[in-house]
């Protein structure tokens, strides 16, 4: 669910298939490509009763106060009766004041207690993202999350990047769009494995969707993963997918003040690609002002001015990717592990 625009979930499709049920953070992930004909180990998620099932589980541990439960309204009585069976129906008549954690009750003393939670409101997504990130770092995968407003040229940039890297760098693409698999088809035509996530009502990709997509894509070790987020400059800023960097694409056909209008996204990104600069002669767009505005929001943001059409800035972009891939591979082995290996069997140790 989106913290930003409140869009719903439940319509997400990966390659046209329903997203599996929410895996709890910490449960085992299956990254291998699914065998043909194999059954899903996850049951399909949409479960309209899920929200009411908590009442049954809750009352289990507090059977003596069943009559006091806030759930004991009409809608919940039925499920409790089923749960307790006939033998336990008497529990509705029992009012037990000693039902607190200590099991005792002093007259007039409240059973209330404090429970420390200390949880980030976005913690669920962050847990999934941490798992994705752990997988990436363990396998030397350099993952980028490409974000922008719709129509800034993300897919064109990807297609050109793929053809420039043509076979030199193993890579895969995850495409996020509200509907259609047009973009994934464009990427496949350019020669890279691509998987389409349709978010349905959703306005951004979240770490759980990406985790699912990764399991289907069967990512190669030491590869590049490009995640094209849904075209939206607001919501994807808040959702970590486990990527190394967010890359924001900002085309010169938009306004120079876009970084000020959507500061969260420019703040969350490490790299800004100022795209379509071949159009600058035809436009009244001040590129320096645009960069200055981005740095006003995020002083550390790196900027590459580029055009996928004329090829300007492409080399710089490819070099940045190459150095990121290099680093991801180098970071795969903890320092201690490297030392323990035979020098001749490890080229990384010889060079460094």
């Amino acid at each position, binding site marked *: *669910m989106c913290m930003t*625009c409140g869009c719903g979930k439940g319509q997400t499709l990966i390659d046209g298939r329903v997203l599996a049920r929410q895996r709890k953070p910490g449960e085992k992930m299956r990254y291998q490509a699914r065998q043909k004909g194999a059954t899903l180990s996850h049951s399909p998620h949409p479960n309209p009763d899920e929200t009411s099932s908590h009442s049954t589980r*809750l009352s289990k541990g*507090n059977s003596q106060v069943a009559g006091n439960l*806030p759930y004991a309204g009409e809608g919940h009585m039925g499920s409790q009766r089923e749960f307790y069976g006939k033998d336990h129906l008497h529990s509705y008549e029992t009012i037990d004041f000693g039902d607190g954690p200590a099991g005792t009750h002093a007259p007039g003393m409240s059973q209330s207690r404090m429970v420390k939670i200390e949880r*980030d*409101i976005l913690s669920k997504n962050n847990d999934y993202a941490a798992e994705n990130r752990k997988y990436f770092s363990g396998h030397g995968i350099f993952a980028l999350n490409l974000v922008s407003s719709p129509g800034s040229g993300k897919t064109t940039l990807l297609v050109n990047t793929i053809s420039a890297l043509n076979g030199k760098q193993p890579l895969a693409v995850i495409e996020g769009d509200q509907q259609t698999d047009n973009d994934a088809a464009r990427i496949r035509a350019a020669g890279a494995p691509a998987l389409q996530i349709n978010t349905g009502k959703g306005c951004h990709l979240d770490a759980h969707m990406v985790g699912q997509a990764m399991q289907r894509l069967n990512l190669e070790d030491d590869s590049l993963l490009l995640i094209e987020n849904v075209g939206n400059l607001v919501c994807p800023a808040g959702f970590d997918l486990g990527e190394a960097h967010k890359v924001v694409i900002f085309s010169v056909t938009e306004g120079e003040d876009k970084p000020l209008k959507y500061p969260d996204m420019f703040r969350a990104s490490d790299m800004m690609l100022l795209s379509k600069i071949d159009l600058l002669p035809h436009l009244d767009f001040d590129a320096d002002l645009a960069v200055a505005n981005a740095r*006003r*929001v995020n002083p550390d943001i790196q900027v590459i001015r580029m055009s996928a059409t004329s090829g300007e800035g492409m080399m710089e972009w490819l070099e940045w990717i190459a150095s990121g891939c290099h680093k991801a591979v180098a970071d795969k082995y903890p320092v201690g592990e490297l030392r323990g290996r035979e020098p001749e069997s490890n080229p990384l140790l010889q060079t460094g």
Partner: protein
Amino acid sequence: MHEMSIAESVLQIIEDSARTEGYTKVNAIWLEIGQLAGVEMESLRFCFDAVSRDSVAENARLEIIETAGQGWCLECARNVAVAARYEPCPNCGSFQIEVTGGEEMRVKELEVE
């Protein structure tokens, strides 16, 4: 930002905790929301009242601890208050500010019975 889904998320965290801790009623909730988190407090209260109906947190008191926006100005080399992301340093007017606080959105603690 849209507060309805934040309220739903808070309730989800509370219900998760109710399951593991085994309580049936929440009297008060302490949230820590940063000034730069982009959350409208009044709207959050309104939304929370709506989503908490018929839940363990029905009628719970919502205490919001607002944490101030803070940043480190690279020019002055000191901590400064940040009211909004695109605002300059109040001392030197530079935009070289690293935001260090005020982006939190946390459920801190609950009073339950």
